[in-house]
């Protein structure tokens, strides 16, 4: 626009203005009418729609799907198209360009043309911009993960929506060969959390299946979910699944059921989708469902990866097994058959097996369902099952995962190192066989077995490793990983996990240890003697806890205060909230009982431990019997007891403060309650009391159960001999 055009415009504008109307009232009238309409609309929205208010913000909620306000949706949607390092385009470049274009529009479009048809570039760009923004907004709304409930019966889709969709949108493209299970479990790229803590292994597999084959998920929801849970099918053999789908009504378990013929109602494509969805590429699980029936937990393999892939995908015929009945006596055959069915029932079969069978069978004992079947097989021999052609059943991803798993498993840790680490780090609380016991961090609660089949089956290696590394603060377990300041390296943790896995085939424990959680049906005085006297003294004279019969105490606290203290407890002290255990009436009785206490000035007398806290291990129920051992030729020195302390005490005492079990001097002198050891006087040493459970404060140590008699005696002898 040059000077002349400027002048011309101003002149023309002046002219139009003269012909125009006054701002007030003509123009303002129009304005107020529009304003009224808008105001009525706002008021109506406020009345009918209201201002939404959701649940209080919960930073710990991992299930919430964040959505920005609607006018940011287009930007939010835009970012989906710029993953990874391209993100910067969506975040910085495009918005900056857009705003700059807007801001400098008068400088970019300097022509004197004003009508929009005469400015095709600006008009066109505006149109395109608006269409893009509206289009992106609409897309974002349509792609919006519906609220989890809206996923209908499709539980896996709901799982996906809750956990993945907010970042990944409605679907994810995965490069072939990706180990999805690991990516989900460990979290991969920046910002993606590790899900193994929040999701079970089954859920992760279901998600992996969903991501690879979203169609399979809806097929599952529509056709299978009425009878089967996703966890059930994910864990079943792909061969069976394929058979069930392919053979229709002739499939044995489906016979006689009112079912459609899957081989006809589902197209081959749909069948593949379903299979892909159900058989997630999780090597560990694939091995367990497909291979372990013949190969046990483990197949020894040291060859090339390609060879293994070939063997698995093409299958093969195993060697024939000779008939053993000529070689073995009847008794031997019986023994072996029993051993094969259940090694525990016929331990004497082990030697026989190792001598005669291990050459071909390796360490793994072939499993058989019944003794008769096993007997028949051993006696008559015969061709083994042909190894199936897995290449027809498994997808390439699954095959990859399986091969990788086997290779990894073969490079895996030997369980011996894991066992040692477990015993020195975990056994203190979890027991030597992972059987659990009273929870030292929680009164009245139990550490459930971690060696049970149920526990190990429901957690994969990654989950177990994460639990060890990060601890379970909610349950009182500290973090053991190096990264979190713990003593264990990643390798250590892996070998512990490997050791724990070795329990899976032969779980040492099945049920949780029982501890009695007493329901107290006592009256005021009795409750006091059973519970309170331990800390507050038999007649309220005080001990660990304050003196209740004290005049000051009685004057300072009204009934309500005493009631509240009993009911709610004090944080960080052994005064727990008894309101969970006692009824209000019982607490009232206690208050009354405390009120009628005669003031006493007696010094505190430690009370022998009877009626310990309910959280005591069964071991403590037996009266401590310490048979005095004849004095050894030489009195034990610190070096003799050091291994015991290191193994049974140091995992908790030392790094965590309080009593330090690391050196002789510290063992004697450190501790929150003064010297733990009085050299030469075992009976009055706190250490002895803690080990025998005769103290009044807290539970017996170690919390997993009393030391063995031998260990105990050694320590006591050491104290008696002067603790040198």
């Amino acid at each position, binding site marked *: *626009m040059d000077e002349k055009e*400027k002048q011309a*415009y*101003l002149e023309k*504008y002046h002219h139009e*203005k003269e*012909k*125009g*109307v*006054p*701002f*007030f009232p*003509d*123009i*303002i009238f*129009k*304005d107020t*009418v*529009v*304003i009224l309409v*808008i*105001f009525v609309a*706002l*008021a109506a*929205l*406020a*009345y009918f729609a*209201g*201002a*939404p*208010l*959701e649940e*209080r*913000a919960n*930073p710990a909620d991992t299930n*919430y*799907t*964040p*959505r*920005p*306000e609607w*006018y940011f949706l287009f930007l*939010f949607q835009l970012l989906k198209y710029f993953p990874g390092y391209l993100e*910067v385009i969506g*975040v*910085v470049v495009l918005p900056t360009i857009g*705003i700059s274009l*807007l*801001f400098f*529009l*008068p400088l970019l479009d300097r022509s*004197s*043309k*004003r*009508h*929009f*048809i*005469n400015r095709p570039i600006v008009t066109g760009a*505006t149109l395109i911009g*608006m269409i893009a923004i509206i289009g992106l907004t609409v897309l974002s709304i349509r792609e919006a993960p519906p609220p989890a409930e809206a996923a209908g019966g499709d539980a896996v889709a709901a799982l996906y929506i809750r956990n993945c969709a907010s970042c990944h949108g409605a679907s994810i493209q995965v490069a072939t060969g990706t180990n999805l299970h690991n990516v989900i479990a460990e979290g991969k790229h920046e910002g993606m959390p590790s899900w193994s803590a929040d999701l079970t292994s089954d859920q992760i597999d279901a998600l992996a299946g969903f991501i690879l084959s979203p169609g399979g998920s809806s097929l599952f929801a529509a056709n299978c979910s009425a009878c089967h849970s996703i966890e059930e099918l994910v864990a079943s053999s792909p061969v069976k699944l394929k058979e069930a789908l392919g053979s229709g009504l002739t499939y044995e378990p489906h016979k006689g059921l009112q079912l459609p013929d899957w081989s006809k109602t589902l197209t081959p494509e749909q069948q593949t989708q379903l299979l892909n969805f159900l058989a997630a590429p999780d090597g560990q699980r694939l091995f367990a469902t497909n291979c372990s029936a013949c190969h046990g937990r483990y197949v020894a393999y040291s060859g090339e990866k390609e060879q293994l892939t070939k063997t698995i995908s093409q299958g093969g015929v195993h060697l024939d097994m000779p008939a053993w009945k000529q070689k073995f006596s009847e008794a031997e055959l019986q023994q072996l058959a029993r051993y094969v069915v259940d090694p525990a029932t016929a331990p004497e079969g082990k030697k026989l097996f190792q001598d005669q069978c291990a050459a071909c069978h390796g360490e793994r004992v072939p499993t058989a369902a019944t003794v008769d079947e096993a007997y028949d097989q051993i006696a008559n021999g015969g061709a083994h099952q042909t190894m199936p052609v897995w290449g027809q059943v498994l997808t390439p991803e699954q095959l990859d995962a399986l091969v990788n798993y086997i290779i990894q498993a073969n490079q895996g840790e030997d369980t011996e190192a894991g066992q040692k680490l477990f015993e020195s780090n975990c056994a203190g609380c979890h027991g030597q066989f992972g059987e659990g016991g009273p929870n030292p961090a929680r009164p009245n609660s139990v550490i459930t077995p971690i060696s049970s089949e149920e526990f190990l089956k429901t957690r994969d290696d990654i989950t177990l490793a994460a639990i060890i590394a990060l601890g379970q603060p909610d349950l009182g377990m500290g973090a053991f990983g190096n990264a979190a300041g713990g003593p264990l390296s990643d390798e250590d943790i892996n070998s512990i996990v490997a050791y724990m896995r070795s329990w899976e085939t032969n779980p040492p424990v099945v049920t949780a240890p029982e501890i009695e959680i007493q329901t107290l049906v006592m009256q005021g005085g009795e409750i006091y003697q059973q519970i309170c006297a331990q800390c507050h003294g038999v007649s309220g004279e005080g001990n660990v806890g304050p003196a209740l019969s004290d005049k000051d105490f009685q004057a300072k606290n009204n009934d309500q205060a005493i009631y509240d203290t009993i009911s709610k407890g004090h944080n960080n002290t052994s005064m727990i909230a008894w309101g969970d255990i006692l009824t209000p009436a019982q607490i009232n009785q206690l208050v009354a009982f405390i009120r009628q206490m005669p003031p006493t000035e007696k010094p505190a007398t430690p009370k022998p431990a009877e009626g310990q806290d309910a959280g005591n291990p069964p071991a403590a129920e037996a009266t401590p019997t310490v048979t005095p051992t004849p004095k050894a030729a030489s009195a034990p020195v610190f070096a003799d007891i050091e291994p015991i302390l290191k193994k049974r005490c140091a995992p908790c005492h030392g790094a965590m403060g309080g009593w330090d079990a690391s050196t002789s001097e510290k063992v004697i002198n450190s501790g929150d309650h003064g010297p733990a050891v009085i050299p030469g006087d075992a009976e009055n040493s706190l250490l002895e009391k803690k080990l025998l459970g005769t103290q009044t404060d807290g539970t017996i140590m170690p919390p997993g159960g009393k030391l063995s008699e031998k260990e105990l005696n050694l320590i006591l002898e050491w104290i008696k001999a002067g603790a040198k």
Partner: protein
Amino acid sequence: MMARLTTWLDERTGFQQVWQAIFLRKIPKVNWFYTLGSATLFVAMNQMITGILLTLYYVPTPDHAYDSVQYITFQLPAGWYIRGLHHWGASAMVVLVVLHMLRVILYGAYKFPREVTWATGVILLLVTIGFGFTGYLLPWDQKAYWATTVGTRIAGAVPFVGDWILRILRGGNDLSAVTLARFFGVHVWVLPSVLLLLMGIHLFLVIRNGISAVPTRKD
């Protein structure tokens, strides 16, 4: 009597001149699209009034924010109404600003001599979006918390300085009491000051330069 009072006042304030300059000035004949600016101004005023009313009860700390919003919405008489107006006004504001802007682009009204008016308008658009972004967090409900988590994280994706921006926005690494306090401060003090200043300039320029006429096919 009235006339005498008017004269007395005018002698001392000169308001009649101002009144004439603003309200009695002549304007080219325009259509209904030209009401969008005034409508935006009205909604901005609505936001100010309802916003001020809301601050009388709202407390910007994580302990109290949600409770106080709940109190406003469900306990106070007409609280739902004030908050509803403010909430929907925010959306209306964005819609109207954009429509107003489209009208200006379509009629070429950003051209000489109204370039500066346009520039202030673009900044006002950004301020409006800033209001929306900061206001969203204040109720401290799930939606607020998570949308802001994501929103600030997006800012964190800027290369080199992203992490720095993220921490400045949040006042630390995580969304916390600090974040809430600064979002509140920006929403209630910083942005309104900027808004009033720019709105003043914008309106002054609109009055000084007059409303652009509807261009004809020949223009």
